[in-house]
């Protein structure tokens, strides 16, 4: 048992924390949000130059060889700064899929640019009807001469209009909700038949909907074995969930600190509101939720690199569940403790609150994971 960061991880943390502190003030963020790509390309550039985009990749593939604890360190700091860059979706989720499934050819042509951050990925897995179920894939890829033609819709693909490649799940055989028959394709968004319509999400990052009309992709664009992509999607979504827990942790820590400050400085009825016992206990509850969430984020990071197993799945699902619950509680109560001021756009707290609540709309909310855990739970 060891809950300390290594010296290297400590340095990594210092680096990212300093970068975020210096580049990602709240006003700067507002500017990035309002920009066309919806995040800071300069900041992304810096992540790339400092080698941070390479952290989650194997050394053999030009990466830094970091594990999910390194991801935890990075994502916690990005979460603290409410950063808008697609680190999680491009480097951890998309990058993870690529690394797990790419054949040598794909490794050569795609991976180096992804590792360096030059080429950003997005993963398109939600559909209008799927509601967090990775196996519910109505999008179909038909075998044609030299490749495939994909038709269907994908919803709320996080990663913005700027993603250079989209990893799309599409069914090459089987019924709509079968586990097998799902394949993964590397899609160039510039291909004919691709309509991508982007928008900001309410918690900040940009996303897009995808309409695919008989889009041709060459055979070489298939990632992994035909029809067998679900396992990898689930596994890598597990890594993404661990990273998201870390992001939520950073955000919650920031909210906790802003709120505690507020309780100590804000006066009402002639004294700091932190002297009111009800608010003290509420803050103690926040503290307790944060503590559990921290424990689960750490646990998730520690198991996410393990080989697939029921134990790993249970723990990652539990982490997502506990963190989602804590995040919502912390967000709602932080606003409540602040009163009206906590609801204003010009105060960073409200944006953290949105992020913390809406994170649960990616990769499944607490109800979804409660159901998943209930199925996976050992009963004898």
């Amino acid at each position, binding site marked *: 048992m060891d809950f300390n960061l290594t010296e290297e991880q400590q340095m990594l943390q210092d680096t990212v924390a300093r970068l975020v502190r210096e580049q990602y003030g709240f006003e700067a963020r507002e500017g990035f949000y309002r920009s066309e790509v919806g995040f800071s390309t300069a900041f992304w550039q810096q992540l790339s130059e400092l080698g941070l985009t390479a952290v989650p990749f194997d050394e053999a593939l030009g990466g830094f060889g970091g594990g999910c604890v390194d991801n935890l360190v990075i994502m916690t700091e990005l979460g603290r700064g409410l950063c808008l860059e697609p680190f999680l979706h491009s480097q951890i989720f998309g990058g993870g899929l690529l690394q797990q499934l790419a054949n040598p050819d794909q490794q050569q042509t795609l991976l180096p640019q992804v590792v360096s951050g030059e080429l950003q990925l997005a993963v398109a897995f939600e559909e209008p009807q799927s509601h967090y179920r990775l196996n519910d894939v109505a999008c179909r890829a038909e075998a044609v001469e030299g490749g495939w033609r994909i038709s269907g819709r994908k919803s709320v693909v996080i990663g913005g209009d700027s993603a250079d490649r989209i990893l799309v799940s599409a069914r090459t055989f089987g019924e709509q909700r079968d586990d097998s028959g799902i394949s993964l394709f590397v899609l160039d968004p510039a291909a004919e038949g691709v309509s991508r319509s982007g928008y900001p999400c309410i918690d900040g990052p940009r*996303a897009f909907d995808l309409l695919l009309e008989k889009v041709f992709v060459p055979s070489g664009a298939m990632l992994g074995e035909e029809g067998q992509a679900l396992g990898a999607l689930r596994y890598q979504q597990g890594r993404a969930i661990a990273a998201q827990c870390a992001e939520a942790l950073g955000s919650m820590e920031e909210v906790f600190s802003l709120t505690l400050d507020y309780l100590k400085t804000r006066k009402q009825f002639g004294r700091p509101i932190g002297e009111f016992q009800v*608010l003290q206990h509420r803050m103690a509850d926040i503290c307790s939720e944060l503590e559990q969430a921290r424990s689960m984020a750490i646990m998730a990071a520690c198991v996410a690199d393990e080989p697939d197993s029921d134990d790993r799945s249970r723990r990652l699902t539990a982490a997502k569940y506990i963190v989602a619950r804590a995040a919502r509680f912390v967000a709602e109560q932080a606003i409540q403790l602040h009163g009206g001021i906590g609801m204003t756009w010009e105060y960073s707290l409200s944006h953290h609150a949105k992020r913390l609540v809406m994170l649960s709309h990616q990769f499944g909310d607490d109800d979804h994971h409660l159901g998943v855990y209930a199925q996976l739970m050992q009963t004898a």
Partner: protein
Amino acid sequence: MNIRYTADELAFRDEVRAFVRQSLPADIATSVRLGKHLNKEQHQRWQRILSTKGWYAANWPVEHGGTGWTVVQKHIFQEECAALGAPRLISFGVNMVAPVIIKFGTEQQKACYLPRILSGEDWWCQGYSEPGAGSDLASLKTRAVRDGEHYVVNGQKTWTTLGQYANRIFCLVRTDTDARPQQGISFLLIDMDSPGISVRPIITLDGEHEVNEVFFDNVRVPVQNRIGEENRGWTCAKYLLTHERTGQAGIGTSKAALAHLKQVAAQETCDGRPLIEDPLLRAQIADIEMQLMAIEMSTLRILAAAQAGGVPGAESSILKIKGSEIRQAISHLMRKVLGPHALPFVEAELNPAFAGEPRHADYSSAPASEYFNLRKLSIYGGSNEIQKNIIAKMMLEL
């Protein structure tokens, strides 16, 4: 005992229901149901429709153009309107300043202001809260200094709802700084186009411009615009706070929202089935519906007591707490039912005039915004924590 309305009340309810169904413009009903941001014109249009029918000033005495309805009729009217998807009336004029003018105003003030409220000519906003005051209303700092036949007002108000539409504001101002906090306050009516007034929008976390800061820089207000005696404004404020508090629970609004939630949950799917068939979600909806039934019954009990001449006390605080919790819980479920489709934040789609293709469905644009916006329910009008203080003090004498 009998929990049912009388035959007369049922007939009245049917009359209200028929009228609202027939008269509520479809665009307004749709905007309300889908959680879009109603614009000024829509608010005014609905007010005019009610005013023409003679139902706008439901709470006023007949002699001033009110309806003369009983407490129960007022409740039925309010809840039916809400349940049928009518917009909540902007209450600052018709239901807040007007009762104060009727109770404490001079004949001249009544003659001047009440008709303009009825006709929709005046749009009122409220100048109560100040930065740094929050729930501690009596600590207000905006000063009004007498200068001949005027007060000179300096200071700042905040959280002024829809102040951007208003041509008048009613304010609590401090006219005596030596007195104890709740004394030395006066109640002033101020024209928003007076020199020295400026309005700054406050954008809330959902991107909405609903509230404002209002700044007073040497604003001259005629003394005749004061309601009641100088330094006795707290009396008006208290009257207003206790006036008509039975609608606190927002039962009609919650009913409409719950019905909408069920409809959406019947359309959204998970695992190939409508979400409404998911046992866990269904149980959460059932739980809320039963809680709503309970506060509806509590409301009816308070109404019956008020009908018999009683004054609702801290029970209103219970209704306010539970009512806001239920409304927030519905908005939470609504957001969850949408799954990933709750994420897109396309402000254009929140405009009632939006005519394009919605991102996912017409009902999916607003719920996340609305969920965040509704955090206000447990904060404003006395936070839920303040309400519990009131219960502890008034009902429990702790």
